[in-house]
């Protein structure tokens, strides 16, 4: 997963629900220096909470992405994020050359 173009990640989940696994694995896939390069806000909800898990991603160009954790697994999330990141990468390559 390309994480270079992420500006902020906001997630909120109840770890006892199945939807939380995707959000947690997404956080685990971010690189070790992620906290220096982007804003990461994590809220762990109590066990009794029925609030659905949310994962909001903001890119450096301002695009916001809200991931539906009910349907998408981590591989689907990675595909979705990479699609936009690759576009930003191409733009960067073109502007540099």
């Amino acid at each position, binding site marked *: 997963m390309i994480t270079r173009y992420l500006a902020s990640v906001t997630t909120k989940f109840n770890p*006892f629900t199945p939807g*939380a*696994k995707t959000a947690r*694995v997404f*956080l*685990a896939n971010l690189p070790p220096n*992620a906290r220096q390069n982007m804003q990461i806000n994590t809220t762990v909800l109590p*066990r009794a909470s029925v609030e659905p898990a949310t994962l909001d991603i903001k890119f450096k160009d301002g695009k916001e992405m809200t991931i539906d954790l009910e349907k998408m697994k981590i591989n689907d999330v990675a595909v979705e994020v990479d699609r936009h990141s690759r576009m930003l990468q191409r733009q960067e390559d073109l502007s540099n050359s």
Partner: protein
Amino acid sequence: MPPRIRLRASQLLARPTFPLQCRYASTAAATTPTSTPPPPQRYPTTQPPSYKPPQFRKSQLHRTYTSLLRSTPLLLLFQHNNLKSNEWTSLRRELANAMRAADASNATHLADSIKLQVIRGSMFAMALRVVEFWHPETTGPSRLTHGLSEAAYKAAKNAQIKTELEPLLAGPLVVLTLPAMSPEHLAVALSILAPSPAFPAPRRRVNPGYHEPAVLSAVQKLMLLGARAEGRVFDTEGARWIGGIEGGIDGLRAQVVGILQSFAGGLAGTLETASKSLYFTLEGRRQVLEDESKPEGKEEAKEEAKE
């Protein structure tokens, strides 16, 4: 040499008893009916047979985790998001220092046994199933009572039954194990590993080592998921609630004693009320009678004085 004649058991029993002149070892062994001996043990007592090959790393992890789960009354579960090795070492150093300080203030010796240990989620889940669902002392007589035995495997195999902790056991995980139920140590550990308004991190002036960049970034990457205390599963708030028990286990005992004492006092008071009210009634009646008799006596005395 004595005659080597094989005799059947029925023939031996039917034989008339007569005093033998001499007994040979071979015949004597044949005449005594022996009970069936237990089948010979074909493995050393320290290495009972395992269901899965014991030399595998997984088997040994399973063994370690069952032993860990059985021996820790209090366990905190964290997710670790890509900590670097220097961050791990500095975090463990700060935790050990804080635990030693907590030991000194509570006069305990737990610091050396409180460990932050990275676990394999799936193996931990299997070990947890064995610990929760397999009870060799109740299931029946079995010679093999260790967690790697076939009986343990079969008891834990049923995927339909889930443990409460199972949804948490995915992704990179680390457990903090405490060898005793000590809310004081838990409170200190929470303030180091997962600071919150209830358990604030140590101030820079008090503990400058905690404010090193490696420790701070390590704490940022740790995420408290839940806790397992005395076999029950708690969420983050539950873990903080356990840490917030004032005075630890002794404080709880004092609370129970207080409740029982107040209850006993109330009961004694209730039982006393009947006799007390009877006493007051009788006393009141006696006073009324005395008051009735006294004025008459006084009036008589006055009349006598007038005359």
